[in-house]
């Protein structure tokens, strides 16, 4: 089991403006690649930083020979991700937030990614099920925020942002593992990262949505 605490502590080091945090919660990491209708200069930024994330954060995890070392490298890589990811968001936030429809479009995800034959074969059913559930929870946050205007509870905003950062890292790493599973992934790495993605996204959703599931207050009778 990957200790989520170490990742969240690393995420706490990240600053950022309120505007950027809102963009971060609204953008599910794995949808960025799907939004290619953005202006060319922005697309170049996205592609460039995504490649940087692949090369500096994910490829080293792939190259480790055993699970413990791979997870250790994932923790170290997350520190780099924490620096790169906000840089990417800062670059595209003005364009994204200019029109809510753009965020909504980016939040619309291909939910069958995790159940595709290729992903199931690459990651295995167990890992794919954790990633699929993580993706659904993360998308529920993004969609709730962007489309339905679900408020972010101020007292939990920082924790939600940190958990989403961990989830975005783990989901992107899962996609990378699925695309680079040949010749063979280290045993257990996909399931471990899938559980990390799920735990962080689920905890963030719980913090964000608890008020929606609370019992209705008894109606007050006016005098």
């Amino acid at each position, binding site marked *: 089991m990957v200790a989520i605490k170490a990742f969240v502590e690393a995420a706490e080091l990240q600053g950022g403006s309120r505007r950027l945090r809102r963009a971060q919660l609204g953008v599910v990491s794995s949808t960025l690649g799907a939004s290619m209708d953005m202006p060319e200069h922005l697309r170049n930024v996205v592609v460039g930083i995504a490649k940087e994330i692949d090369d500096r954060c994910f490829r080293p995890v792939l190259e480790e020979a055993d699970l413990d070392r791979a997870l250790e490298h994932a923790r170290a890589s997350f520190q780099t991700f924490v620096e790169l990811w906000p840089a990417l968001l800062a670059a595209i936030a003005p364009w994204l937030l200019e029109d809510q429809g753009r965020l*909504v*479009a980016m*939040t*619309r*995800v291909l*939910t*069958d990614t995790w*159940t595709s034959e290729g992903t199931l074969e690459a990651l295995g059913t167990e890992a794919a*099920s*954790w990633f*699929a*559930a993580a993706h*659904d*929870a993360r*998308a*529920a946050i993004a*969609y709730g925020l962007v*489309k339905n205007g679900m408020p972010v509870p101020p007292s939990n905003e920082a924790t939600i942002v940190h958990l989403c950062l961990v989830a975005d890292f783990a989901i992107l790493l899962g996609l990378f593992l699925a695309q680079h599973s040949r010749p063979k992934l280290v045993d257990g790495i996909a399931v471990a990262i899938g*559980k990390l993605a*799920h735990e962080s996204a*689920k905890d963030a*959703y*719980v913090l*964000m*949505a*608890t*008020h*929606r*599931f*609370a*019992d209705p207050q008894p109606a007050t009778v006016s005098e």
Partner: protein
Amino acid sequence: MSGEFPPKQWEVWFASLREGVPGEQTGDHNVLVVSSPLMQSRVVLVAPITSTAREAPCVVKVEPQDSGLKLVSYIECDQLQALSPSPKRFKEFRRKLSAPVRPAVALALQSALRGALPDPYANES
């Protein structure tokens, strides 16, 4: 008031499940009512609760203070059953599940029913 018939959403009851074959939850179990009060049905949908640890996206771990049960428990959203809201099935009311656990149950239900629920993005242009 909680604990009245018919059992309501988010209530934990001690109930008699349906007969089954190995692999299915059967016998007397604590259960969580998950169905909507607007379902317009003669049955209520319940998710069995077990003390046997199990890890899966469709299972929710719940602490005693959130469920009113004595042990750490696991709500199995992949073992939904439809039960008649009768005292023959629902034997004893425990308590309502704490609100902070409910979103996790909602996600677990989504995971169990993945592909069977409407795509939330379907109506977007």
